[in-house]
Structures are given as C-alpha cells and as structure tokens.
C-alpha cells in the first residue's frame, strides 16, 4: 500500500480510525444529547416552556447558579493558591498536597457527600456544636456548596500546575528584582501568564459544579424549592412520571454545558497564539 504521510499509516487505516471515532461520538455523545431535546419538545414548545416555568424548577435553577457562583470562585482562588505553592515554592509535604488535590477525583462523589454528613450531621463530629449555635450546614445550602466545592476542587489546580511548572519562577523573580511587590507581581506577571489556563479550568469546574449529582444528593435533604439543584430536580421530575418536564430541565443543563463548550472553543480559537506563546518557554 502506498505510504501517504510521514507518520506512515496507510490511508485506509486513517479512514477506519476516523470512522470509528466519529461513530463512537455519534452514539455515545450526539445521540443521547439529541434525544434529550427531542423528548423535551415531544409534546410541543408550549408544554416545554410551561415545564420550565414551574416554581420548583426555577428555585432549583437559582440554587444551582448560586452554588456555582460561590464554589467556582472559591475553587479558582484555592486552585491558584495551591498551584502557586506547589510550583513556585519548595516545602515539606508538597507531595502530600499534590495527592490531596487529586483526592476528589479518586473518591466516589457519594463518599464525598457522606464525609460531610459524618462531619456536620446531627450525629457527626461537629453536629452537637453546630446545633447549639444554630448553624445549618448539612441539608442546607452551605452543605451543598461544600460538597460541590470538594468535588470540583481539582479542576482549576490541575489545569494550572503543569503550566506553572513549565513556566518556572524566573519571571516572578525578575519582577521582584525590579522592585515590584508580591501582589503587583501576582497581578501583572503571574496572572496574565496563566489566565487562559485559569479560564479553561474555571469553565470545566463550572460545568461540573452545575452538573454534580452524587455528592449533592447525599447532603441535600431533597427539600423541594429549597435544597434541590437542577440535577436533583430532574430526577424528581422523572420519578413523578413528569418525563417531558424532566427532559425540559435536562435541556437547561445540556445547554449550559453546550455554552461552556462553545466558550471553550472560542477561547481556544481566539487565543491560540497566546496559548501557544505562553506554553513556549
């Protein structure tokens, strides 16, 4: 068979590989996604809109956005701190910190939720203290924020660490030696160098924060209109034989995910040069 490119695979193999990938994508990603929209609109657009206007669905949407609005900035901040300390400093326990950052990826979300029940639940370690001080964490918004933050913690840090490692500390040292303060150095040197990676990490973190089911399910208490997030609301609607509404709400989540994806693509396309430049040393 004639060799057509320097990598050396024949054209046939290329086409087979591309074909497999596309078929796989079509069945695993595209088909279910289409199905969500088809099911949601099956009874017509009016029914679809009515399903989205439901007060409990609105409350769930508000809660989901509130939780994301708290946990994503927190994780962006903690992610930067963690990546900063891991890549720009040497200290005892650095490897431990690195493993801890990955912990939420390796622990089942349900376990993550249970950890908080064990800590803050009425029978948990801090339960009696919290009750005597009238602080609600579990089965309330703070618990949902905590669980979501825990589950989505690695996204920003994971995105930043390799980049910051590759970039080294020379630019920061240059800035400090030029008389800039630490904060000035961070704002004008470190942050601009990592901003695309940071934005990318924040997008991923946000997508997961809004879609998280397992951990949130454990700490939510499922109080309608108060502690149900969008994914929990979808489950409830589905279990109430309210399939059209369930899929309608699912299209909300899917749309949020699609917006994320589009933003990410635009970012990559718009800033391809800077991304390449900032990855170069």
């Amino acid at each position, binding site marked *: 068979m004639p060799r057509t490119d320097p990598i050396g695979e024949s054209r046939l193999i290329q086409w087979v590989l591309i074909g497999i990938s596309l078929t796989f994508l079509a069945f695993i990603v595209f088909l279910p996604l289409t199905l969500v929209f088809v099911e949601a609109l099956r009874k017509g657009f009016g029914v679809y809109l009515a399903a989205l206007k439901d007060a409990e669905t609105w409350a769930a949407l508000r809660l989901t956005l509130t939780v994301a609005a708290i946990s994503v900035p927190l994780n962006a901040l903690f992610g930067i701190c963690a990546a900063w300390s891991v890549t720009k400093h040497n200290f005892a326990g650095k490897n431990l910190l690195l493993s801890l950052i990955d912990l939420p990826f390796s622990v089942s979300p349900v376990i993550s939720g249970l950890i908080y029940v064990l800590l803050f639940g009425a029978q948990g370690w801090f339960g009696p203290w919290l009750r005597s001080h009238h602080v609600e964490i579990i089965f309330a918004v703070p618990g949902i924020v905590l669980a979501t933050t825990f589950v989505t913690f690695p996204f920003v840090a994971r995105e930043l660490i390799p980049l910051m490692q590759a970039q080294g500390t020379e630019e920061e040292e240059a800035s*400090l*030696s*030029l008389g800039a303060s630490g904060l000035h150095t961070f704002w004008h040197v470190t942050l601009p160098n990592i901003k695309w990676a940071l934005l990318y990490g924040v997008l991923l973190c946000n997508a997961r924060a809004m879609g998280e089911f397992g951990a949130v399910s454990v700490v939510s208490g499922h109080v309608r209109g108060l502690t149900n997030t969008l994914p929990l609301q979808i489950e409830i609607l589905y279990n109430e034989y309210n399939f059209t509404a369930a899929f309608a709400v699912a299209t909300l989540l899917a749309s949020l995910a699609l917006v994320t994806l589009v933003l990410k693509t635009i970012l990559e396309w718009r800033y391809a040069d*800077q991304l390449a*430049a900032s990855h170069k040393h």
Partner: protein
Amino acid sequence: MSVAVHIRNIEKRFREQSVLHNISLTVEGGELLALLGPSGSGKTTLLRTIAGLEFQDGGDVFFGDINARQLTLRERRIGFVFQHYALFRHMTVEDNIAFGLRARPRSQRPSEHDIRSRVFELLQLVQLDGLEKRYPAQLSGGQRQRVALARALGIEPRVLLLDEPFGALDAKIRKDLRQWLRELHQRTGHTTVFVTHDQEEAFELADRVAILNGGRIEQVGTPTQIRQRPENTFVADFLGQTATEATPIAQILPMKRKPQ
C-alpha cells in the same frame, strides 16, 4: 573609586551540601567584574545572593555602608539580567522596560510621560528603537538579551548583575554583543558583575575576574595578573583548558566548520 558591593564571609548550604564557603569579595564602584568558574562552582548562587534572590546562611552583603539585610528587594535596587532573560512574555518590549518604574509605589512613581521618555532613551541605548510594540516571542535571542538589559537599567540600579549574559546565544552574536556590552559599560559606568564559564569572555570583557571552584574563591585579579601569576594549580589547570565540558554546543558547532 568607592566600594559598591562588599561581600563578607558568605556561607550558603542547600540541604546538607555547602555551595558557598566563606566567600569574601569587594566590587569597586563602576567596575566590571566577572565571576568565572566551571558549572557547579557556585558562581550563579553567589550572584543571586547579592541580588537577594537567595538568602545566605551566614555572612553579610553590604552596598556601600548599608547591610543588605536591612533592605527589601525593592530597596536593594539591583538590575538583574537572567540567563534566559525572563522577559514578561505577555508584555510588549515597551511595557517590559517600563515595568520597574510602573511597579513603584505611587509616591515614587514618575509620571506616565516621564516613564515613556525614559523607555525610549533606553531603547535607543540598546539600539532597539522601533521595536517597542513587539512581543518577546517576536524577537531574536540577541534582541531579547538587550531588552532584558534595558529593563534592568530602567530602575537605575546601584549594581547590574548578569547571569551568563551570552550563554544562550550563538558564537557570532556572542562576540558582537560582548563588544557592545563593553562599550555600553564604558558609556554608562554602571557597577557590573557578570557570571560566565567562558574564560575568553571573562578576560576580554572584565576589569577584574574572580575564579570560583567548589564554592570557594580561588583567585581574584585583573586578567593580566591571573594569566601571568595563577595562584594555585586549579587556576593554572582551568586556564590551560581551552574548551571545558560546560562549553555550550552552540559555541562548538560553528568552530567545526573551520578547516583544521
């Protein structure tokens, strides 16, 4: 000439390893001094210690009469040029050079107009006028080197410190830049310390050379003094070698083309 930098009994350890051992050295005002030695001799660590980027475990650094321990990094006013330049990759040449002035606290910051005219003076000084809107990635190695130098000069440093200033450049440009740096030094008169492993570079450029080995200073003197009277066998051996193991490939390759 006044004393610009005085180093007294510096000790520095990384983990258990001693990297600088009882180093004392004086740099006169306006002098161009080379720290010469093989890789691992401690010359870069010494330079970074003077700059305040590393902290010594023992001994003191004085700028004139002032002990550097009392000074913040900003108050040291060191112009440091990194081996790989460490230019801010997301800033234009102009913004790079203006960085030190703009980073000053408001009360000490010159007006934006003054900053700009200072930047253009510096661009002319390093012969880069017209390139102020470029990004570092759009410059050649030699041009980046000169931007780094202009940026360091921008803060009106008491001392200019250069870490292997020509290490990342190929042989032809090294020679040109060397010549140019010598002229620049004569014109501006900045007290300058630079690190190199290349003795030809050190002897051609520097007023005085300090030879380091294993974290100690083996000999300090003018190029002529050292060439004529090496104080010990290490210095003699080191001078005898033409190309050490640390010579970069960039320097060897063009030589190969010469007919033997």
